[in-house]
């Protein structure tokens, strides 16, 4: 394998385009690859649509690197889409981007990269990989607003050792400026927001289209049935809007029980939790957690990291927060930080 050869995943967006240009500038032998992940076409041309492929091809040509389309639809279905559907059907809230990073980008694509003779894969993620005392570490990016470490906490040491993220040091604004300076057509392209494989009519219809209608059931509040829900896949723990019932005060989803097909509601405050447990944990600076550690934790991408103590417990961890946190949703990731350093994370249990 060649130390100076890198395969970069090119979605056709501004981040991966600029990442490719930076690597080329740094003297790497860069091979652009657009990953075909699914057959869904979104109105704005999602990440692996026909227009995304053509944008990536034009950018690759502009910066002078080869470009290929590789098909990962099988891997993506098995490790992302199937998981996504199963989680919702079990009353949980999945993290498809985390699964895609772990099993598709940094596993299946990395394997292909090695086959092509490249030592590394690169992405346009905003996160920083460093090395200390023989250990690969993951740190938050310089641009805190764009930091994507929440979706990268479960990368293995091998994956970190074979990954380049050249945007770690710059802000999104700077990325756009570089794209503009290089004359890349994607400089002004919007950031993608939606889940890439879900069509514009929403994730619930996508799931029901594949696995059938999610059966209606009861909303339970204060021990009493207070209304009907339209199927558990339509709801997330912590959700307040769109419940379609009026109880005189704001209520939140506090628990989704797939076995009874019931959704439990609670008033303001009831969704606050002092602690949670998590499984499928991965740690980055060390292999396992042997004693409690004080750090901070994020329970969703857009929330702030909150001070907590993490205790090893069985195969997983117990996380005790200094102050109660709003509605940890089973299935979502909890990610631990020590300042900028990512310690690791896990999947929040029911």
């Amino acid at each position: 394998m060649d130390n100076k050869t890198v395969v970069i995943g090119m979605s056709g967006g501004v981040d991966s385009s600029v990442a490719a240009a930076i690597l080329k500038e740094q003297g790497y032998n860069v091979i652009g690859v657009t990953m075909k992940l699914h057959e869904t076409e979104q109105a704005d041309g999602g990440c692996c649509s026909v227009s995304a492929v053509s944008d990536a091809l034009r950018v690759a040509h502009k910066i002078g690197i080869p470009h290929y389309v590789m098909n990962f639809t099988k891997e993506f279905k098995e490790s992302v889409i199937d998981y996504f559907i199963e989680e919702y059907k079990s009353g949980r809230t999945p993290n498809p981007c985390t699964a895609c990073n772990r099993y598709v980008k940094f596993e299946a694509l990395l394997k292909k990269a090695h086959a092509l003779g490249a030592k590394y894969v690169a992405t346009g993620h905003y996160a920083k990989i460093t090395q200390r005392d023989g250990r690969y570490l993951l740190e938050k990016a310089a641009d805190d607003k764009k930091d994507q470490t929440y979706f990268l906490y479960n990368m293995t040491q091998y994956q970190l050792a074979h990954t380049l993220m050249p945007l770690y040091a710059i802000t999104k604004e700077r990325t756009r400026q570089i794209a503009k300076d290089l004359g890349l057509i994607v400089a002004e392209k919007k950031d993608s927001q939606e889940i890439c494989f879900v069509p514009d009519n929403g994730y619930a219809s996508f799931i029901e289209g594949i696995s059938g209608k999610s059966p209606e059931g009861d909303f339970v509040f204060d021990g009493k049935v207070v209304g009907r829900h339209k199927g558990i896949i339509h709801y997330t723990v912590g959700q307040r809007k769109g419940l379609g019932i009026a109880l005189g005060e704001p209520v939140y989803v506090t628990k989704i029980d797939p076995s009874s097909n019931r959704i439990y509601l609670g008033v303001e405050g009831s969704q606050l939790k002092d602690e949670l447990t998590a499984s499928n944990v991965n740690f980055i600076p060390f292999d396992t957690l042997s004693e409690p550690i004080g750090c901070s934790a994020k329970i969703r991408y857009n929330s702030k990291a909150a001070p907590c103590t993490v205790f090893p417990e069985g195969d997983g961890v117990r996380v005790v927060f200094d102050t109660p946190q709003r509605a940890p949703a089973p299935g979502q990731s909890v990610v631990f930080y020590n300042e900028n350093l990512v310690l690791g994370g896990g999947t929040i249990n029911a």
Partner: protein
Amino acid sequence: MIYVDHAATTPLKKEVLDKMMPYLTSEFGNPSSIYTSGRKAKIAINEARATLAGILGAKENEVFFTGSGSEADNWAIKGAAKMAKGKHLITSAIEHHAVLHTFDSLRKEGYEVTYLPVDADGLVSPQDLEKAIRPDTGLVSIMAANNEIGVIQPICELALISKEHKVPFHTDAVQAFGNMPVNVDDWGVDMLSISAHKIGGPKGVGALYIRRGTRVANFIHGGAQEFGRRASTENVAGIVGFAHAAKLADEHLDENIQKLTQLRDYYIKKVKETIPYCRLNGHPTKRLPGNANFSFEFIEGESLLLMLDMKGIEASSGSACTSGSLDPSHVLLAIGLAHEIAHGSLRISFGVENTIEQVDIIVRELAQIVQRLRDMSPLYEKVARKQV
């Protein structure tokens, strides 16, 4: 760079471009115009038509220029189906998508289509055709030579059976034309599609031969071009280039066939000697002179093509990988290959500018790449271990 994908397209010949240039520059007249520049363009088209008709053994008013080989296929099939009394059509399982997808569209319109199978070498059996023809059969369309595995069909026999049952017979000769003798009377076909860019001509021009008396609906409605049957201002330069490319191919046919066959057979021999666990797809001798299609076990074609490209070798696989499709080639599945073997296929199609030295380079690089990909395959590891 070594270009060995002539079944996809061919480089435009210098002499052909020279013949085209006047019609892209000074001689810009519209062939339908009555004044001098229009007449000049009209004459050029008539001469081109005469040239092609001569090569095909057709009459001039039986040759119609189209925008591509795919258009010629669409016209022949849809046009004949529309005029047919019955609603049953016959084709083969290994046609080009220009034919297969046209039949698919007709099926949606209520036609019934029989897909004749092929044997392990890719050949359609005349007996199968005989059995498939029914009183309501309106068209038979079977390709002359296959684009993926190069197999050459017994077109004379197939067309004769069709004729005996009074069913019009169309053949897609896009791959055959310029690579083997093509004569509409020797073959006994009623319609035949050809394309310019497969024989050193420009892209964007093809032709359909329609035997006089064959009932085919017109395709593009508008002006009176192409005897009123296919409207559109003519692609004059393209048509002139097409005819000249056909003339050159025809004049050099014997020597080209000899040269391509030599390259092909040398490549096939070398691959078989050098790379274990491979198989040649398609009939060993009844195949296009420049075509060699191999399957390599324990690897996938996608990575193989990318790695060849990085070594400057431009070839193609059985599967349509560039479009990001994972479906294995319908042709390779039709000759009985398992999915995983069909995925590891490589089509090399030689052209007259290729050399024996290039074949040596291709085989050397190919052997290394195949080995590297196999080293990563858990399946191959098991096989290799068993041998030790």
